[in-house]
């Protein structure tokens, strides 16, 4: 049990930025991103506690976490409910850094919101391939789709982001 906790802490510290970036690109806002990223790690924690030690040792952590995050995200989309207004005040305070950071942050947020407008299947493919920079094989694995499908979805997603083929994204 002690071992699991150490593995888990390392896992969180090593992957928190990556998984948060992924969640932000998928959800389009920081509030949902933090929830998805937290859920991802908590699921990982429960899984780790159940896995036999050799399975934990051989785990390809990065690919595994991506797969969990995509599933958390998909489950949320499925059970989509109106955004709850944050009442309990536990939301981390919006960091107010130097003005430069604030500007950069606003740009990033706008970018994330734009990506979040893509239909989910294009968005997942584009984000994993070009935000997380996974190989097509890794993306296919994380999404549980054939490589050909992933390539086509990435292609269509990029097209929409570039402002081409507007009618294409509505189906």
């Amino acid at each position, binding site marked *: 049990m002690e071992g699991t906790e150490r593995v888990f802490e390392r896992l969180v510290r090593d992957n928190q930025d990556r998984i948060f*970036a992924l969640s932000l*690109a998928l959800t389009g806002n920081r509030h949902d991103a933090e929830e998805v990223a937290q859920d991802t790690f908590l699921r990982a924690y429960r899984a780790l506690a159940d896995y036999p030690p050799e399975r934990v040792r051989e785990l390809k952590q990065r690919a595994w976490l991506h797969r969990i995050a995509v599933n958390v995200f998909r489950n949320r989309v499925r059970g989509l409910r109106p955004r709850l207004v944050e009442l309990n*005040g*536990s939301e981390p305070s919006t*960091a107010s850094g130097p003005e430069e950071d604030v500007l950069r942050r606003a740009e*990033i947020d706008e970018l994330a919101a734009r990506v979040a407008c893509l239909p989910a299947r294009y968005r997942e493919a*584009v984000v994993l391939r070009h935000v997380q920079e996974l190989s097509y094989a890794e993306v296919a694995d994380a999404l549980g789709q054939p490589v050909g499908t992933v390539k086509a979805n990435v292609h269509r997603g990029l097209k929409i982001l570039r402002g081409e083929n507007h009618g294409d994204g509505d189906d």
Partner: protein
Amino acid sequence: MATVMIDLKRLGDVKAPAGFADRVLAQAGMADSYAVFETVLGPVYVAWNRLGVSAAMRSKSAAEFEEWFEREVGRRLVRVDPPADLARKISDQLSGKRRLRFDLRGLTPFSQAVLEKTLKIPRGQVRPYGWVAREIGHPAAVRAVGTALANNPIPYFIPCHRVVRSDGVIGNYGGGGPEAKKNILSLEGVQLARLQKLAQSGYRYEGVKSTKIFCFPTCYHGRHAREENFVFFHDEAEARAAGYRPCKDCRPAVA
């Protein structure tokens, strides 16, 4: 084409918000959360987890509290913005309007029994150490009860201040010395002067003439009687000889 790729790449450079990893560890139960609360007793550092409140201390600084907690409780602490309703729950707990849940893992079964029993002493009343010892089935372990209470990780919330010496000396108090103990008891409505006067005269119990029941002097069963209707006893044998039976509520003796 190129700009879209560059933009997407920048999205990948986003960092997790400050404290994210710590919050995840706290949610996984690997660390307790804590915050400082303004209470009737002044600022109190309070730690909690999924099982309940795990510690409370009037520490001088966050660093002092963290150090104490990690040494005494053995888990890590993460400072968080408290949930909005927690401040009210805490003030309700301290004013006796509510019972919070507590996490006493890590304490010995004996200490847990002492603290659970102490939780049952009503606000405005006090009990001797020996009473706690007898009630948890270890009548000889009076000193051990004192040690367990002195090491209470959640003073104020688990009211170890309501356990006093039977000779009326208020006794030491981990939560800020004897003076702090007296202040809290007065705040809760204990008539300390009366209590100490009785104890100094050697009286441990009071009986009410009309009911022929004897109680600890702070038991609320006697509070409506007029002062001239009270009789006082040095010990149980004296009370029983006078035809009095022990109160079933404060249980000054086994019924």
